[in-house]
């Protein structure tokens, strides 16, 4: 893993077409601006972790039936 130290207002460029800028730092929160081509999906990492957890939880579904709810 590449580790860098940056100040507010400074940035990082990835692969020439992705630029990441540190917009501000306040306490333990960092605001980050990212510019990337449309085909690059950007999401908070925890969304993938949570989706993994939810997919695994979904498989443990109890037996269900909506028969009674049918009109």
């Amino acid at each position, binding site marked *: 893993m590449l580790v860098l130290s940056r100040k507010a207002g400074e940035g990082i460029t990835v692969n020439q077409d992705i630029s990441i800028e540190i917009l501000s730092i306040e306490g333990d929160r960092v605001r980050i601006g990212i510019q990337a081509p*449309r*085909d690059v*999906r*950007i*999401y*908070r990492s925890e*969304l*993938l972790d*949570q*989706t*993994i*957890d*939810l*997919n*695994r*939880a*979904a*498989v443990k*579904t*109890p*037996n*269900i*039936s*909506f*028969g009674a*709810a*049918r*009109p």
Partner: protein
Amino acid sequence: MLIETERFGCFDTKDSKLIEFPSGIPGFEDLHYYIILEIPQTKPIYWLQSTENKYVALPVILTFEILDDYYIDIRENELEDLMVESQNDLLVMNVVVIPEQVEQMTVNLAAPIVINTKRGIGKQIIIDAQALPIRWPVYDAIMRSLIKGGQQDAGAVQESR
């Protein structure tokens, strides 16, 4: 081909019903082939059943069938990965988590599973958007759709044992 499932027994299905997930599904990266099962007792919940592991069946809804205002932005390159030629071949489903208290079931709107039904290729994509909660209470919407009736064809394997 005969497909064994833990939850619903055996299904005899055409190979053409197989859906390949080249990168798997998050949490099940090693499983690459699924079929969509349509079980009358659980409709409008369908099941994305692994054909490689009988214990892995994800309950899913065809989200556009249940929610009137679901909106996702699928990127050109994602459509290319799925080899989509026509929007009509796209099926969008979302995974439902159903606890013992069924009324508390939620759907992961942030991670739609997108399938090209014509070519049999699928992918779960993650979309970071405020309008797409990862745990959205979906029970009431499912009950409403049951009363409303009328469902689209998911290309699912019907129960025929």
